């Protein structure tokens, strides 16, 4: 794992609501009974807490444009961050309506657009590592070298600051202990400060396990999407997850040996599941198989 100060981005996650319903979503969209919407005071405090952070401040969801106060949020970003220090991620919700506002405040290369209309792959994220990896020393190694923490970002949600964006979402889903207080410089703390979060989230997560990738289901446009989960997570989620209660899951009940892990790791490139990056709907159109207007069938 790496220190947060080394990361290229720390996200401010303004909501975990999304109009799409991808399989194995990194924000566990579809599972939550009630999504969160960060209030404006917390958005300001989150950005202020990143003063001096050498990387970028990410405006992230869910889908940020599902937030009813997104215009005010973008104004806060514009007021408090340099243009080259901010980056927005969108799944394209009301793109035509919102794109002028986005272009006004973000450079094109710092707009990441993914409406999931092109074939997409996702890593299963709800397989508890201790349920499936036999060698406990190897399980620890996989966690300590998780690609999400080493290649993606940390994040801030209404529950605090987190060392990993997937851990932040899991904390919300599993009603975990929350993040560290959103105070100036929280991201300068050593990884020891996040041990509590790691203990709650990493053992319940499958990001670090070399597993076969699965289709994202075009964001739910082709029908209900199923998440792959393991037994111990099923026991927790059956009480609290809408997606599980609707039967949109499949159980992975396999024990992986070290040989299986080697074999699975050959074609495993989870941080490079898309071989293109889109900055707009127009960009995405070269790769898409479905129209972004296609009705989302999964609920």
């Amino acid at each position: 794992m790496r220190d947060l100060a080394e990361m290229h981005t720390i996200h401010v996650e303004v909501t975990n609501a999304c109009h799409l319903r991808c399989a194995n979503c990194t924000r566990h969209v579809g599972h939550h009974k009630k999504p969160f919407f960060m209030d404006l005071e917390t958005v300001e405090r989150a950005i202020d807490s990143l003063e001096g952070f050498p990387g970028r401040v990410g405006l992230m969801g869910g889908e940020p444009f599902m937030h009813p106060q997104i215009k005010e949020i973008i104004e806060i970003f514009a007021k408090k961050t340099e243009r080259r220090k901010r980056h927005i991620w969108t799944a394209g919700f009301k793109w035509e309506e919102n794109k002028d506002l986005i272009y006004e405040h973000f450079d094109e290369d710092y707009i990441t657009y993914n409406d999931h209309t092109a074939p997409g792959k996702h890593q299963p994220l709800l397989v508890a590592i201790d349920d499936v990896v036999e060698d406990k020393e190897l399980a620890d190694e996989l966690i300590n070298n998780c690609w999400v923490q080493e290649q993606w970002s940390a994040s801030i949600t209404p529950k605090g600051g987190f060392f990993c964006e997937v851990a932040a979402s899991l904390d919300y889903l599993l009603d975990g202990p929350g993040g560290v207080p959103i105070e100036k410089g929280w991201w300068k703390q050593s990884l020891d400060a996040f041990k509590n979060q790691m203990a709650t989230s990493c053992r319940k997560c499958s990001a670090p396990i070399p597993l076969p990738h699965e289709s994202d289901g075009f964001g739910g446009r082709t029908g209900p999407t199923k998440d792959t989960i393991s037994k111990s997570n099923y026991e927790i989620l059956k009480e609290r997850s809408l997606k599980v209660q609707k039967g949109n899951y499949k159980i992975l009940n396999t024990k992986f040996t070290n040989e299986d892990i080697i074999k699975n790791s050959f074609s495993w490139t989870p941080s490079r599941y898309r071989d293109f990056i889109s900055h707009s709907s127009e960009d995405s159109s070269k790769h898409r198989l479905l129209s972004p207007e296609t009705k989302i069938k999964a609920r």
Partner: protein
Amino acid sequence: MEKKSKHIFEGKIYTDENFKEAVKNFSFISKCKFINCDFTFAYFKEAKVFETEFENCNFYKTHWEASGFKDVIFKNCTFEGTFYSSSKFINSHFKECYINSVKFRGTHFKESLIENLEILKSEMSRSIFENSKLNKITFSKCKMFMFMCLNANLSEVEFKDSNLTLSKFLDCEKKNTVIHETNKQLCMFVKNNKVGS
């Protein structure tokens, strides 16, 4: 889509230049030569560097994350605490450099040559050496989780006290290359059609 650089270095020779703490992210550097230059604590993130030579330069804690290097030579340079994560080197050459505690995490070396140096206490997890030559190199106390050598030529390479879990050596040519038992290698894959000694 690529952002146009504000910092352009083109066709110049820089001698004894001080780039200490300079912030020059997204630089475009082409056909330059840097001799005895100091890049201590400088930011050159997401730079594009072409046909350039660095000689006797100091890269103490310099940030080169997510940069691209093509036809670049580093000779007799000092790298300590340097950040190269997620960078790509194509047809580039590291020669007789001092490399200590450098972050090469997720870095891709393609058709490159690394020779006569020790890589000490550095992070090389998920880095790839593809169609590259490693000659007289020692990797010592390095973190090399999911490190990969693909169709590489390893001559007199030594791996010691490093973590090689889930590393792979595929279709490599190896000569006088030793993976010591002091390495951590919970699972490792070696499949070399062209096995040397």
